[in-house]
C-alpha cells in the first residue's frame, strides 16, 4: 500500500466502452439491419418464426433482469404474459380501438396488478418466493376460466373485422407485427442496458452479488426489487399482448402456460448465461436451433433439451456466454465502467 498525501488526487477518466464492446455493438448493428429488412427477403412462415424468437428474447431478457440481477427467481411470469394477452383482446373486442393501442395498455394493467403481488411476495425469501410466485400465477388461469365474458375455458378469438383494423392487407399486417416484435426485443434490451449503466444498475449488480454488503452500503434492496418487478411486469404484459396478437386466439391454458412462458425462458436464460445481458440472446438462439432441428422427433426433443441443459451446467455453469466472457473477456454491451489513471 502507498499512502498518498490528500493534496495529490490523480487525474482519471472513466469509460464504458472498450474494444470488445465496440466490435460487439458493430455486430449488433449489422444483425439489426439484417433483421429489420427480413420482410424483404424472408417468406411468411420464416417471418412468423423470427417474430416468435424476438418475443422469447424479450421475455428471457426480462426474466434475466429479475432472477439474474434483482435476485427474484420468479416462476410466475406467465401471469403477466397471459394477462397482457387478455387485456389486449378485451380492449379490441369491446372498445373498437386499434388492437395495437392495446399493447401499452396491456403493459399498464400488468404493472398495476404487479404492485400488490410484489408486496405480498416480498414477505417471502429465496425458494419460498419462487414457490409463492408460482402459486400467485396459478390463480390467473383459474379466474379467467370462470369468466364467461372471456369465453371461459375455451377462450376467445379476434374477429376478422378487428384483425383487419390493424392493417388492410395480410402482408402489411404480418410485417407490422414482425417489426413490433423486433422493436419489443430491441427496446427491452436497450432499456435494460440503459438501466444497468445508471447507479441503479450498480445497485442491481451489487444485490445480485452480495445482498448483505448491498444493504450495508446504502442500497435499499426491497425498494429496488419492487421497482424492477413492476417494470418487468409492464414489459412482460406488453410482450404477452403481442404474442397473442400474433396467435389471434387466447385460452387460459395457452395464456398462462408455465411451460411456454417460464420453463422455456429459464432454460434459455440459464444455458445462455444468467446475470449477463448477452445470455438470453445466445440462449434463445440455441433453444430455437434445437427446436427446429428436433421438431420431427417428438418427445426426443425434450430429452435432448434436458441433456443439453445438464451438459452446459456441468461444463459451463455460468452459461455459454458466461463461459466465453470469462475465458476471452468478451463483452458485447458497454456496461462496465473502466477507470484509467492519467498520471
Amino acid at each position: 500500500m502507498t499512502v498518498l498525501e490528500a493534496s495529490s488526487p490523480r487525474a482519471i477518466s472513466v469509460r464504458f466502452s472498450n474494444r470488445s464492446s465496440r466490435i460487439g455493438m458493430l455486430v449488433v448493428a449489422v444483425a439489426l439491419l439484417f433483421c429489420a429488412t427480413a420482410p424483404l427477403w424472408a417468406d411468411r412462415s420464416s417471418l412468423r418464426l423470427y417474430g416468435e424468437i424476438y418475443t422469447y428474447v424479450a421475455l428471457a431478457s426480462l426474466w434475466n433482469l429479475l432472477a439474474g440481477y434483482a435476485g427474484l427467481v420468479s416462476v410466475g411470469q406467465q401471469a403477466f404474459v397471459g394477462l397482457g394477452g387478455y387485456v389486449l383482446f378485451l380492449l379490441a373486442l369491446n372498445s373498437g380501438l386499434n388492437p395495437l393501442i392495446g399493447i401499452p395498455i396491456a403493459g399498464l394493467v400488468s404493472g398495476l396488478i404487479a404492485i400488490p403481488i410484489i408486496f405480498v411476495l416480498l414477505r417471502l425469501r429465496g425458494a419460498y418466493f419462487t414457490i409463492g410466485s408460482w402459486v400467485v400465477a396459478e390463480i390467473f388461469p383459474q379466474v379467467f376460466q370462470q369468466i364467461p365474458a372471456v369465453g371461459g375455458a375455451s377462450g376467445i378469438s379476434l374477429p376478422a373485422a378487428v384483425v383487419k383494423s390493424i392493417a388492410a392487407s395480410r402482408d402489411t399486417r404480418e410485417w407490422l407485427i414482425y417489426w413490433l416484435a423486433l422493436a419489443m426485443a430491441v427496446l427491452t434490451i436497450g432499456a435494460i442496458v440503459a438501466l444497468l449503466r445508471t447507479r441503479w444498475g450498480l445497485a442491481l449488480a451489487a444485490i445480485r452479488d452480495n445482498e448483505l454488503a448491498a444493504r450495508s452500503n446504502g442500497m435499499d434492496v426491497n425498494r429496488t426489487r419492487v421497482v424492477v418487478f413492476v417494470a418487468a411486469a409492464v414489459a412482460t404484459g406488453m410482450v404477452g399482448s403481442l404474442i397473442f396478437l400474433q396467435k389471434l386466439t387466447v385460452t387460459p391454458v395457452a395464456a398462462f402456460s408455465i411451460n411456454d412462458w417460464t420453463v422455456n425462458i429459464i432454460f434459455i436464460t440459464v444455458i445462455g448465461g444468467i446475470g449477463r445481458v448477452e445470455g438470453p440472446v445466445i440462449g434463445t438462439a440455441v433453444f430455437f436451433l434445437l427446436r427446429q432441428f428436433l421438431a420431427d422427433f417428438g418427445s426426443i426433443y425434450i430429452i435432448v433439451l434436458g441433456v443439453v441443459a445438464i451438459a452446459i451446467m456441468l461444463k459451463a455453469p455460468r452459461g455459454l456466454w458466461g463461459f466465453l466472457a470469462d475465458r476471452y473477456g468478451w463483452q458485447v454491451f458497454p456496461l462496465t465502467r473502466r477507470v484509467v489513471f492519467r498520471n
Partner: protein
Amino acid sequence: MAPILSLRGVSRSFGAVVVARDLDLDLAEGEALGMLGPNGAGKSTLFGLITGTLSLNSGTISFGGQDITHIPAAQRSRLGMARSFQVPQPFSGMTVFENCVAAGAFARNQAERAVYERAAYVLDQCGLTAKANVKAGTLTLLDRKRLELARALTTRPRLLLLDEVAGGLSEPECAILIELIKDIRTTGVSLIWIEHVIHALVAVVDRVVVLAGGVFIADDTPQRAIQHPKVVEVYMGIPASEAAETAAAGSEGRHVPA
C-alpha cells in the same frame, strides 16, 4: 460534545447464546476505539447491531444524536456509517472500481463524477490502482481486505467500523496500514476497530474495550486495558486474583497475545 455513537442497554442473543448483554458504549466524535475479545465474544455481532444488519432484542442505539434503533441498514449507511467485513463481502461480479463507485453512489448520495474521483483516490490510498478494472471475485484474500477498506472509505463515513483489516498482513504491510488509518483519522472520522494484531491497534486507538461473554470486561487506555486482570484471565486462563497479583508485582511490557 455529544457522542457520535451511543449504545444503551443493548442486548442480543441467539437461542441460549447471549452475544450482547445490556451493553452501554459511548464513542466521542473523532475518537478511535479499539475492540478486543476472544473468538466468539460477539465483536462482529456488535458491528452487525450497530450497522443494522442484525436487530436488537432490547436497548437503543443513537448515531449523531438521532435514535437509529429501528432504522434499516441501508439508511444507517446513508447517515454516514461504513463497515468493513471480517470475511470480505465483495460484489464479486463487479470490478474493484465499480465496487467502490456503487458504495459511494448510494451510501452518501454523492454526484457521479465526485464518486469516480473519490473512488480513484481511495483505491490509490489502499494500493489497488493496478487492480481497479479487475473483477473483485478474482482478488486474493489480502486484496479483498483492502477492497473492504477502500469501499468503506469511498462513502466518506463519519463512523468507520473496521473488522480485522490487519489480519494476515506482513509486518511492512501492517506498518503501511497503520499509517493509512492514522491518515484517515486526521480527517476527523470516528473509528471502532476490531483487531487481534495488538501492536497495530495500540499504535492507532485512543481507548480499548474488551468484550467477553457479551459484556465489556475492560474499558481503558490501550496499555491499561490489555493488562487488566480480567482480560488476562480471559486470554491466558489465569484467575483474575492471581493476574492482579502479577500485575501488582510490576511486570512490565506484558502483552496479551493475539
